[in-house]
């Protein structure tokens, strides 16, 4: 299914794009309000480049994966593993390849990109930079101030954005609403183009960037939008708003956007802030689900705070295990056959054995007895505080290991007793 490739929510200030298979929902009057809300989306304020991608794949062969600001990128990619495929089907432009296919099962209200919101001049400029013949046609057809009428042309949007539907009469109001912020947005477009986004090789990318520029601009001026959004109270919109939330965080295909399109759910507030909040919360809950799988014994935990506590405990215990093991390795002298490094590494990598005679969840409780000499209290002070729910090895094995460990290290060390009184291990300087 091309759903995976065709990710992305188009923003349609005035238009709704029902697919042939979808039961059309009349586009609410407040679409533009909603769109502005969703546009102002969600600037991911990660230290590096905030970066979300909506997959505009079919439009262009954008295959490059830029690495924008490392972690944010990666985390988005991770997030992209469960994309919300949102696709549009352009009824008008069937021949173009840049159309995104619309999943018939969904009841999305498509958001067509804001391009048409721009004044006619800018739009045709942008479209011309595109170099797509269909686009110019569309541009011409959409130039009229009455946005709704342009949509009725049915030529649909540009290649980038895909579907237009012929339905929206109601959106005409939105067109007017969207006009004033457009001026400012247009100004910002050039600024945005200079932002540190990787240069797109084709015009589509630029088109997208412009769009995202607009959206990010829109976001930058929440106060400007607010009066507009208030014009479109959520109640009307809520009633008409249907469908699942379409959200596309990132696309592995390489086309990255700086914003996420989100759609308000039925019965939910459409305030821009709440939309952004909701997206953020859902991202976080998805990550928490991932973590729940990683941390053992967290299946029945519901609740963020408890879950976070468990995660913290687990990370701490893992770190302590590493510390303990490194202490052990530091004191244990390898025998003569350690020169056979390759064999060792192969053995270690391919070892499918269980923990065997090795310490299990380390020192946990038993170590606190062993360490009564005080030597290791500094390094493993909070071991006893860790929960004992992590599996413990048989006590005897642990004892042997620990005895061995200590014998090696502290045979001839009378000074150890001196440290017994100290709470923490502080070597003499």
């Amino acid at each position, binding site marked *: 299914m091309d759903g995976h490739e065709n990710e992305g929510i188009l923003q349609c200030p005035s238009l709704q794009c029902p697919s042939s298979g979808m039961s059309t929902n009349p586009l609410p009057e407040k679409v533009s309000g909603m769109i502005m809300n969703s546009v102002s989306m969600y600037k991911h304020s990660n230290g590096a480049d905030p970066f979300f991608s909506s997959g505009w794949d079919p439009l262009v062969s954008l295959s490059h994966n830029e690495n924008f600001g490392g972690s944010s990128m*990666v985390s988005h990619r991770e997030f992209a593993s469960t994309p919300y495929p949102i696709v549009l089907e352009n009824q008008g432009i069937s021949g173009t390849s840049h159309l995104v296919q619309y999943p018939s099962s969904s009841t999305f209200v498509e958001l067509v990109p804001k391009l048409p919101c721009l004044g006619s001049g800018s739009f045709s400029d942008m479209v011309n930079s595109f170099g797509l013949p269909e686009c110019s046609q569309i541009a011409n057809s959409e130039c009229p101030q009455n946005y709704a009428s342009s949509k009725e042309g049915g030529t649909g949007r540009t290649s980038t954005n895909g579907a237009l539907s012929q339905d929206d009469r109601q959106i005409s109001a939105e067109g007017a609403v969207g006009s004033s912020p457009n001026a400012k947005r247009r100004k910002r477009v050039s600024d945005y183009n200079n932002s540190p986004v990787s240069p797109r090789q084709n015009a589509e990318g630029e088109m997208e960037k412009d769009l995202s520029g607009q959206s990010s601009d829109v976001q930058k001026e929440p106060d400007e939008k607010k009066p507009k959004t208030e014009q479109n109270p959520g109640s009307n919109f809520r009633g008409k708003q249907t469908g699942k939330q379409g959200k596309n965080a990132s696309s592995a295909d390489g086309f990255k956007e700086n914003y996420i399109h989100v759609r308000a759910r039925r019965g939910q507030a459409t305030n821009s802030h709440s939309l952004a909040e909701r997206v953020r919360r859902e991202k976080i809950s998805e990550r928490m689900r991932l973590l729940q799988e990683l941390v053992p014994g967290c299946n029945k935990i519901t609740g*963020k705070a408890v879950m*976070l506590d468990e995660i913290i405990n687990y990370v701490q215990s*893992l770190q302590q295990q*590493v510390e303990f093991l490194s202490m052990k390795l530091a004191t244990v002298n390898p025998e003569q056959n350690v020169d056979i490094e390759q064999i*060792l590494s192969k053995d*270690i990598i391919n070892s499918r054995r269980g923990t065997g005679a090795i310490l299990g969840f380390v020192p946990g409780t038993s170590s606190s007895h062993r360490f009564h000499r005080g030597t290791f209290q500094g390094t493993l002070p909070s071991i006893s505080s860790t929960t004992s729910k992590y599996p413990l090895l048989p006590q005897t094995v642990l004892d042997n290991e620990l005895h061995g460990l200590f014998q090696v290290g502290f045979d001839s060390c009378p000074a150890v007793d001196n440290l017994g009184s100290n709470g923490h291990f502080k070597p003499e300087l």
Partner: protein
Amino acid sequence: MNPRRSISSNPASTVKSRFTNGFLKALLRINRQRITSTTAYTPREIFRGYLRVKIAADVSMASAIGSRRAWSRAMLRKVRSHGRDGAQVRRMSFLAMRKRNLYGKKIKCVEEDVGCYQANVLRKLVPGGAAMDMCCLLGETAHYIKCLNTQVKVMRRIAEVFST
């Protein structure tokens, strides 16, 4: 999640194998150093040895991950800066303080998020977490947990092999 941990399907280039190789090399190097130098079993020497091994483990783990992750970059940065200072003392106090101050500071949370306090604790645990927001922090934590698991498994196996 396995594909995330290995660059390619070639078993020689999994995170686990890279970590194992790097760590073993470092271990053997440390052991050689220890043998050549005076075998001192003073607590100080033991502690130094422990630190070296721990840092070797962390660095080899972070190097096996590379620059793909924020936490691995942060860890490498930290180790390098600490190495530059050359302060063993600082490392020790850092270690001691790390445990002590983990829950010491209660940062006032203005968000309505319920897990704000724990998030700050988590930030101290995960390397490089201070500069992340909640969403990235959780992602990094997940990857960090996976890598810690690998590290523990490999180190356990090595200890097993060494002590037989």
